[in-house]
């Protein structure tokens, strides 16, 4: 962090203001500056946000005579040269998102909130427009008019994958089934540059199978975000057998830069979270089928007894029971373990159109209560 000088009197400001309070002249830009370390302390005591010690804090004198403080993970010496760039946020990085479902929407919200450019492609412009309105209604909760306008100015909508051409990374978040994903991945690769990374947000499909759709599988990997992406900190980073180190590293680093905590997991059915979660959900449904307790009480017991923020049945409703059934079927087929076979009640609810919160009903009723 470095200071901006007043263009009139030279006083220096470190806050996001535009004019000098003393002489009212406009402030100049920070600009790129070279600096020299004039003092260093090795910090051995952790503090919130800086738990890993030791680290090194340097007092840096910049070439215009002002100072900056910088943190370093390795020893730095007095006289060492530093360089600060004008913008410390992510360099122009354009993300493509394909799909218009819940996860696609959540990812668009996340990337816009983090200041990145987003190209959002789905089959139907009409559905995209509806989804965009939902994203806007989420962003408006945390942004003022100016921020919202700036965020939306970084969003482009299209029903044509060709608009992904200038993206640095495209994440597909279409329906959780092999064939549609293969087709979409194939089309994305044809639309983007050879440098572009392609990631899938699949929650459980095999990366090696998905990679078979691609001519450049080295540039492809899994980034499994959790719903809602803006709030959930985990990203499961998955390699296919062909993913190269550079791709893996960049997907990992991008997750960190978004404020997420990436965890590398093997290309194994359900990765970690779904592999552990699905039997839990299935057992909760079985308990309901067996009359152990009503849905509300099963959820309450798990919330309080296991300290989960949400009960398994409510969670299944949130994920979508159709999605849950798809994942369980896939895990059952690949792992051959009956614990993963979806319980009959799950299938029944899906057949009745009660696929959870998005359908207005699942284990719980989400229809609005009638007005008195």
């Amino acid at each position, binding site marked *: 962090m470095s200071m901006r000088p007043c263009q009139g009197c030279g006083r220096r400001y*470190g806050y996001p203001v535009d004019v000098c309070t003393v002489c009212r002249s406009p402030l100049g830009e920070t600009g790129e500056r070279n600096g020299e370390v004039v003092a260093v*302390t090795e*910090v051995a005591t952790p503090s919130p946000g800086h738990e890993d010690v030791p680290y090194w*804090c340097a007092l840096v004198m910049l070439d215009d005579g002002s100072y900056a403080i910088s943190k370093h993970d390795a020893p730095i010496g007095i006289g060492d040269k530093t360089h600060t760039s004008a913008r410390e946020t992510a360099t122009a990085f354009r993300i493509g998102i394909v799909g218009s479902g819940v996860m696609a929407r959540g990812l668009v919200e996340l990337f816009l909130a983090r200041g990145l450019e987003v190209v959002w492609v789905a089959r139907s412009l009409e559905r995209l427009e509806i989804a965009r309105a939902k994203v806007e209604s989420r962003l408006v909760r945390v942004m003022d008019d100016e921020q919202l306008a700036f965020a939306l100015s970084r969003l482009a909508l299209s029903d044509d994958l060709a608009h992904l051409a200038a993206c640095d990374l495209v994440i597909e978040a279409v329906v959780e089934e092999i064939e549609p994903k293969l087709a979409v991945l194939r089309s994305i690769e044809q639309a983007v540059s050879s440098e572009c990374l392609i990631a899938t947000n699949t929650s459980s499909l095999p990366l090696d199978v998905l990679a078979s759709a691609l001519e450049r599988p080295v540039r492809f990997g899994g980034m499994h975000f959790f719903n809602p992406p803006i709030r959930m900190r985990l990203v499961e980073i998955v390699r296919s057998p062909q993913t190269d180190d550079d791709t893996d590293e960049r997907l990992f680093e991008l997750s960190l830069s978004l404020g997420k905590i990436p965890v590398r997991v093997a290309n194994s059915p359900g990765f970690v979270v779904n592999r552990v979660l699905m039997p839990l959900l299935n057992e909760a449904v079985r308990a309901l089928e067996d009359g152990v307790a009503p849905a509300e009480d099963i959820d309450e017991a798990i919330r309080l007894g296991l300290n989960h923020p949400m009960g398994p049945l409510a969670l299944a409703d949130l994920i979508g029971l159709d999605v849950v059934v798809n994942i369980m079927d896939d895990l059952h087929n690949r792992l051959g373990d009956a614990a993963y076979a979806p319980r009959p009640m799950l299938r029944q609810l899906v057949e009745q159109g009660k696929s959870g919160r998005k359908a207005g009903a699942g284990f719980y009723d989400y229809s609005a209560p009638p007005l008195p």
Partner: protein
Amino acid sequence: MIGAGKTRFGPSTHAMPRLAQEAILGALDDAGMSIEDVEAFIVANFLGGPNESQLHLNSVIAGLFPDVRRPGWRVEAACASGGAAVHQAVHMLAAYDPILVIGVERLSGRPSGELTRNIGMAGDVTLDQLQGLNFPASYALVAQRHMQRYGTRTEDFEILSLKNHANAQLNPLAHFYHKQVSQSDIDCGATVATPLRLFDCCPVSDGASAVILSAEAIDARSVPLIGTGLSTDVISLAQRYEHTTFASAREAARMAYAQAGISPAGIDFAEVHDCFTIAEIVAMEDLGLAAPGEAVELIRAGQTSIGGALPINPSGGLKAGGHAISATGVGQVYEVCKQLRGEAGERQVRDSRVAVTHNVGGVGGTCAVQVLGRPT
């Protein structure tokens, strides 16, 4: 300064109102007056909000004197809250006389990460702390600059630390009254942020201090407060131009000395804000008690000990007397009152006529300086 009271500084099981009451009763008894004689009161407190989820402390403190209903308000300027409140009280005497100033703080019992974060609120959260510059690290950079520029040595910090610990053993209200600290303890101290180690840092204490000010002396024990200064500088080290001195302290001292009509040469001893050992050296130089870079000569010669030519922190200072944040600045005034009246017991500084207090918030973001004279 017609009355002064103070609790012991150190870990306490008592809640803030109980601590405050002990100091208030001490000050009232010292002045020989009743709470009903007080026309207004100021509560200095820094972390009641984040630590105890308790703000609106003037009203909390009013719960210690039901039905009295005096004007009261809270002052917050990080670790300089107490000195800032005394400064304000002096300037409010035209409207309310006498005024009671209470500094109170509770810091123990919080998880250390939470406490570090809360104390960190005294530094710039966006400019400095994002870069990992916590308080020890800030003062460590000040120390590094001072060592480069003036040849100050870590041995100087050790002499100073031992001196303040020795003083604290003469002060029953000090945090480390019962703790004997030797060179070998210092040698074993863990590194906090180079060059600062454990015994370069003050503890965090619970405690309260109270003083009562009036425009007129009430008896022969009334201590004249002859000058007060308060100055505020930018909070971020990155926004400063120099890092071996605090401009706020120099300015506050200039104001206080001008009002008192004295020069630094007229000062017999000082209570200064030694939250870290380096801070005592910087304080002496900012107060003009030594030229820049020359405070260490007095320290090395033992002149800043109680029997020396210029005793610094006879109470033990923050280093060993304890640092109950907002109670610290008010507590410095308490200590100087005791000393100037000749009531300081074993730690009494002999033949002193004029003393100065120096209370800093953050890393020199705020500084309050008061000059007091011997009762006449």
